[in-house]
Structure formats: C-alpha cells, structure tokens
C-alpha cells in the first residue's frame, strides 16, 4: 500500500487537484483528510499531519530531483506546478491512505 504505483499515482493526482482547488496549504491537508477518512480531522491529528507536510516540503525543496521523481509516477495527466508542494502533499496523502482507519474493512 505504501509502495504500490497505483496508490502513489492516486495520491499524486489527488494532491494536484487539491493544490488547484485550495490556496491554503493547511486547508489542503484538512480537505484530504476529510475526503479520505470521511470525517473531520481532530486537532491533534492535524498537528501531526501539518508538521509532516511542512518538513517534507522543506526537505523536498532542497532535493528537487526526488520531488520530480515522486510526482512522475503513473500515466494520468501531469500538469506542472509547485513540485515540492505537490510531492509533499502526495506523501501526506499516501500516509492517509495507509492509516488503519482508512484500510479497515469488515
């Protein structure tokens, strides 16, 4: 689930859509949570996610090559944009896809 290209492509495309739709970065993280978990995020959850998003974005900004490689996954159309921001949001979304709560089925 963390490494499957299909999951990573889905995360990349959602990250690009959210980036286009929502100007605020913390707003994008919040919206991703709502879309994937079907409930609003708790404050402490947002804290973890925002800190993860920010540190990933900072790291990826200094390693644009990695950011480029991350967002190049999959065949769905790939508009150019703020690559580091999209890659960091994409990683945050992969994380959300992999939460036990997301994967739980009964």
């Amino acid at each position, binding site marked *: 689930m963390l490494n499957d290209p299909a999951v990573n492509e889905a995360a990349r495309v959602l990250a690009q859509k959210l980036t286009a739709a929502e100007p605020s970065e913390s707003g994008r993280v919040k919206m991703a949570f709502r879309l994937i978990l079907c409930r609003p995020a708790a404050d402490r959850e947002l804290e973890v996610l925002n800190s993860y998003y920010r540190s990933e974005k900072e790291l990826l900004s200094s390693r644009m090559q990695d950011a480029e490689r991350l967002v190049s996954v999959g065949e769905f159309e790939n508009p150019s944009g703020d690559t580091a921001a999209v890659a960091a949001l994409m990683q945050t979304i*992969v994380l959300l896809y992999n939460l036990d709560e997301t994967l739980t089925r009964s």
Partner: protein
Amino acid sequence: MDTELIESRLNTNRRHFLGKLSLGIGTAALGSLLIPDLFSGDDDEVFSSGLPHFAPKARRIIYLFQNGAPSQLESFDYKPLLNTMAGQDLPASVRMGQRLTGMTSNQERFPLVGSYFRFAQHGQSGTWVSELFPNMARVIDEFCVIKTMHTEAINHDPALTFMQTGAQQGNRPSMGAWLSYGLGSDNKNLPAFCVLLSRGRGNGQGVYSKLWTNGFLDSVHQGVQFSSSDEPVLYLNNPDGIDKDARRRMLDKLGALNSMAHEEFGDPEIQARVRQYEMAYRMQTSVPELTDLKREPDSVIKMYGPDCLVPGTYAANCLLARKLSEAGVRFVQLYHQGWDQHGNLVGEMPLQAQDADRASAALIMDLQQRGLLDETLVIWGGEFGRTNYCQGDLSKANYGRDHHPRCYTVLMAGGGVKKGITYGESDEFGYNIVRDPVHVNDFHATILHLMGLNHEHLVFRHLGRRYRLTDVGGHVIKPLLA
C-alpha cells in the same frame, strides 16, 4: 419502546466494555505467557520466541507440499500385486462400498493397474522407492515413510485446506500461523511464516491465500507469500524518490496516527497493522540479501541443479526455503503444483518427479551439511493418494488414477523424527490401511509435539469456544518420535 431502546444501547455499551476488558486482559496475559519479555519495554521483543510447552525436538519446519496428490503407488508404496492383477477388477471385498469421486463413480469397471515404473530397495533400511525418485532414494535412510495417512476429504480444495488448517472449510488458521502464534519468530526481520509457490509440468490444481491465512488469530501470524518475479515480495521496494530516511519519517507519523486510533478504540488489529508495516520496513533490507541465490557457492548450486537459479522453480524455492529457515523463519511452506494425474500418468509423473526429486534430496543434504537437519523438520507429501484402479482408458503404456483419501504416503525427515523407518502398512492392493493409521489430526498433533507444543493446549478462544489446530481429535504418533 423508548425504554427498550435505551436499555438496548446500555446493553451494547456494557457488552462492548466487558468485551474490551476481557480481550485486553486476556491478550495481555496470554501474550506475557507466550512471550515472557513482552513487557520489558522494547517493542521489538514482540517478535522474540515464545515458550514451548516442553523441550522441542524441532525448531523449524519446511513443508514441501506436493500439491495435486502424487501417486503413492508410483513413488513410495510398492504394490507388486497390482502388476500381477493388472486389468482385473478391484474386488468389492477391498472397496467395501467406499465412496469414489464423481469422476470415476460412473465407470463400468475398476481395472487394477500396477506401477509402470520399477521399484528397488534402497539404503540400509531397504525402503522401496520407485525409479522416478533416484535422488530421494539415495537419502531415503534420513526419512520416515508414513504409508498410512488418511483424510476425510476426497477433492483437492477441501483436502488441501484440511491438511493445512485442520478443517475443510477454509476459515481456520493455517499450521504455520498456529506455530507463529505459539512460538513467535526467531528473526525479527523476517515473518515467522513464509510461503513459496512453484508450478510443475503436470496437470495442476490451484492454491489460494486462504491456505496460509491467520484465520481468527492476530494478522501478524498470516503467511507472507514470496512471488517468483524479480521482486520476491511484491511492492516491498520504495517508489522512485523515496529513500530509507523518507520512508522512516512517514512510518513514524503513520505509527503516531495509528496509535491515536488505538488509544481511542482499543482494537488490537491496529497494533498488528503497525507491527506489519514495521516488519515490511525491516524486510526491505533482509529480503534482498536472502533472495539473492547467485551468491551461493557452486557446490550448492550443483546439488539443487541449474534450475535453482531460475526464480519460481521448485529447486529455487527449496534453496530459498533453506536460506529462510536458516535465518530463523519458523515455518516455510512450499507448494509444488502439477501432481493431479487423472490421465497420462506415465507421461506426466516422470516430469513432475524430475523437478521434485533432485531439489528435495538436495535440501535434505544441504541441511545435513550445515548441521541443521536435526532441528529442522522436513515434510514431503500431498493432500491425498491415488486409486489403485485406472481412471479412463487403460493400456499397457498409459493410465490414470483418481483421488484416494483412504490411504496415502507422506514422508518426514529431520527434527526429532525416527530415521530410516516405515510406519504403518497398507493392504496388498494399496487401498485400505492394515495397521497403524495416521489421521490428519494425528499428523498435526505429532508435528506440534515435535515443535514442543501440546496440541491440546495450543488454543485460541473464538466465537465462544476454544479452537485447536487438531480441533477435537488427534493423537501424537509416538513410534515416529526419535
């Protein structure tokens, strides 16, 4: 009506609370019994060995499952009477009205047929082995040949499921999952239960992931399937642009969020998932090292044969099984498909045997050379046997055999099993058991015993009762023990 509704809600809450309480305390207590270091503070200790019930003879198992049911009559159960009586009908006094599969029950005749392949005695034990298994014949003195296995199922899927889980339905934990539950893992970087699949050249029968399921046990006990592609474990490698540090950072946050959910809901499966993700992270390093078979010395490659360098062959899987087992994997389950010879037995069985014989024998020798055979139990066999009468057209040069659950042969070697013996006796027709039957439950009880577990004490409470691998049956077959 309102009162009833409120009561019902209260009820649910109380039930939830009590359920949670008993589960919480129960799992903690059981966990600490099985894993004495559970509360020592180090998370990794969860993967350390559990405590057996008594001193084990075997520490690990490699199960070479010959899927599809190889004929005992062309391999290890020599029945010359079938050659002398070839073409005559199976006497009703032998069949005794026992059921047949729908594939032959409508046949007008049940003509007996003897082995097309010659048998000879081998080793000091003088065990009869057919010419199809020359390499196994050379190490036959290491084996205990059980000639009187019998099962309750007559078709592949239920029989296979029965051999693997102790039940025919497919919802119970597999043998490897029970051992992982009972004994834990000896290597925290690898799963305790690994599964390897290979296809033979004969008529094949499918295998399904329910055969290595954890059933109602914690998900960390389920078997991990290694695939035959370039990536032995699918999607184990990080995607492009992610290095080990980046993966670590994500896992830490993922773990933190999952732990919040666990605090809130108390579902042990959440913790199981966290552990599985951490296991996968460690496997990113351990698996590539292990599965690189090209680094094996020439002498080893020669023993298993050149096929062992082709991923996904039975030979490659046997070698990989040795490496996994050596690294501490508790239970390595191989499935080799293609043993279902309803027809063209004379054409297919030599090809199947050619693939299976050399590598199976090589595994025994390899383990022996490394001093591992004494603590590793190797099992070789299928889900049932094959009929002594011919299915379909019988000619001098070819024939087929249908499923036969009444009596079949399974081999064991190493790990506390008596060497060079034959256990049990089938009748001259190879149809019924004359002496010392071994039911599938007995087989499981004996295997657990060899691993230091009392099959009546290895239990898990589920749906209001305690379950065992042997369910409500099973006796340890003491004469098999060294």
